[in-house]
């Protein structure tokens, strides 16, 4: 209930009273999200950082207190992750992945190394366990395809020549994530080396099988799921997603990867229809996911990690600029396009939080949650602003070509 901390209503008395409290809390949370969403749209910022902030404000040890609805929020957050990743998978067809792997694998590897290493090193310097540091590497690695795709559209950059480079890098990151998450999920369980190796092997084997299934049998699965009725289609797709995500989680592949692979598998007409059907649902549960992540963090824990988060943000903003402009240069894009590519890859968002959420749920490192939240808050906002201003910031000399650019 939203009461000043310390003063509690007796919510555990009767069931109907409990239900009313849960509904009232959820109502207030969703309305807060709606208000913040409007604000975000007005000032031209992505909504993810504002949702996180809302969670922080309503979270542990703060003035407001949510508790009756927490159980629902926890499940809602899980559903949010499943839907986020399902729709991400739906965005891409197997052909997109093949093309991405073929054309940008080298840039993808460089992007991976240059942006995970700072995170991992930073974690180790802070004295974290190797697993927690690896998770931080994941947090710093993943650019936010949600934020970036939205902003590319907002700024009318779909037709720009550098846009395919940006998008293929994002595709590569998503493929890497499908391999990275299962490994981390196994490591988090913390078994012995031999057991861990076997579990990682099994998890990766399952991912490989899922990739093959999605490449080969995409049309069969899609046909089985398809229905002309929107209601039946929604029920079948949601049912299948939760089932696959749950089984994946049980097999330590992580629910997120299960949902992503299912999304890749669905294609053709089903994918088209689900893409129009599910986004509103994803936005609601995705919002709940960000709020819930914020709720689990005590805002007072943010202060000590603020400076480390800022340093990490600056370093990994530069590494993204470097890898982005390198990839663009390799694709024959001129200096200004390279600069835009680099800046466009800076925003971090949903996936950094998904990765950090894994660690928080497993209790890997108490500082991981606050640090990731602060980091994403900084880079989601700063990254979006930089992306908007890309054409007004002069291209730094290091990106400018020393020789005349080739005329097409």
């Amino acid at each position: 209930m939203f009461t000043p901390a310390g003063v509690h209503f007796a919510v555990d008395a009767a069931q109907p009273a409990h239900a009313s409290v849960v509904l009232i809390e959820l109502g207030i949370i969703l309305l807060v999200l709606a208000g913040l969403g409007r604000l975000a749209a007005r000032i031209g910022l992505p909504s993810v950082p504002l949702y996180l902030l809302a969670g922080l404000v309503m979270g542990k040890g703060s003035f407001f207190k949510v508790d009756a609805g927490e159980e629902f929020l926890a499940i809602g957050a899980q559903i949010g992750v499943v839907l986020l990743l399902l729709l991400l998978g739906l965005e891409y067809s197997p052909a997109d992945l093949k093309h991405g792997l073929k054309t940008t694998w080298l840039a993808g590897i460089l992007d991976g190394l240059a942006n995970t290493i700072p995170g991992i090193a930073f974690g180790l310097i802070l004295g974290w366990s190797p697993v927690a540091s690896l998770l931080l590497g994941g947090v710093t690695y993943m650019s936010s395809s949600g934020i970036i795709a939205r902003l590319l559209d907002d700024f009318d950059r779909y037709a720009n020549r550098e846009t395919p480079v940006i998008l293929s890098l994002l595709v590569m990151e998503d493929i890497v994530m499908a391999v990275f998450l299962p490994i981390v999920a196994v490591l988090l369980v913390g078994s012995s080396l031999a057991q861990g190796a076997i579990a990682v092997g099994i998890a990766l084997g399952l991912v490989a099988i899922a990739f093959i299934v999605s490449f080969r049998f995409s049309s069969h699965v899609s046909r089985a799921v398809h229905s002309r009725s929107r209601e039946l289609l929604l029920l079948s797709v949601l049912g299948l997603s939760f089932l696959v995500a749950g089984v994946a989680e049980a097999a330590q592949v992580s629910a997120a990867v299960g949902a992503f692979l299912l999304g890749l598998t669905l294609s053709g007409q089903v994918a088209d229809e689900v893409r129009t059907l599910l986004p509103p649902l994803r936005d609601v549960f995705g919002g709940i996911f960000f709020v819930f992540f914020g709720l689990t963090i005590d805002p007072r824990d943010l202060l000590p990690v603020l400076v480390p988060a800022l340093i990490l943000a600056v370093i990994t903003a530069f590494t993204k600029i470097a890898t982005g402009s390198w990839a663009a240069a390799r694709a024959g894009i001129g200096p200004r396009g390279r600069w835009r590519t680099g800046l466009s890859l800076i925003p971090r968002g949903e996936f950094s939080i998904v990765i950090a959420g894994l660690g928080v749920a497993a209790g890997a490192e108490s500082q991981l949650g606050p640090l990731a939240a602060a980091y994403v808050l900084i880079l989601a906002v700063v990254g979006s602003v930089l992306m908007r201003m890309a054409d007004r910031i002069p291209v730094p000399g290091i990106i400018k070509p020393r020789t005349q650019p080739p005329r097409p």
Partner: protein
Amino acid sequence: MEIFETPLPGIGVRYEFTSELGDHVGVVIRRDGKRDVALYDRQDPDSCRGTMELTDSDASKLAELLGGTNITARLDSLRHMVEGLAIEWVTMPKTGGLTGQTIGDGHIRTTTSASVVAVIRSDSGIPGPGPEFRLEPGDTVLVMGSEDAVSKARIILIG
């Protein structure tokens, strides 16, 4: 004119070409049917001088303006080429005629010699429907043949 095609994962496909007079143009066809048209700077192809965003219907109107061939124009020219060829769009009634029955049930081909070439249902076109195709109220049926055959077919269709 050479057109370059680049896939945009998660968005659609981008086509790029240089016009004969040297303008650099890009067209993005998004998966949801929207189009983005961009005019690149002549000196620096990496920056856009402007973009326009078109819906599906905007795009087809623009294509008409630009002299693209739309279906009716093409059918008209077909009619000119074959003397005496009649083409008719028949909208299926709520009940009666062949509504609710298959195309084969009407024996249109055997009794009139006209052919059912396509059926348009809501927004999607079904080219060359087979005899087992069941007609629904509101379907638009495209019939071709001689004047006489088409008018007879029309009577069979709507009853």
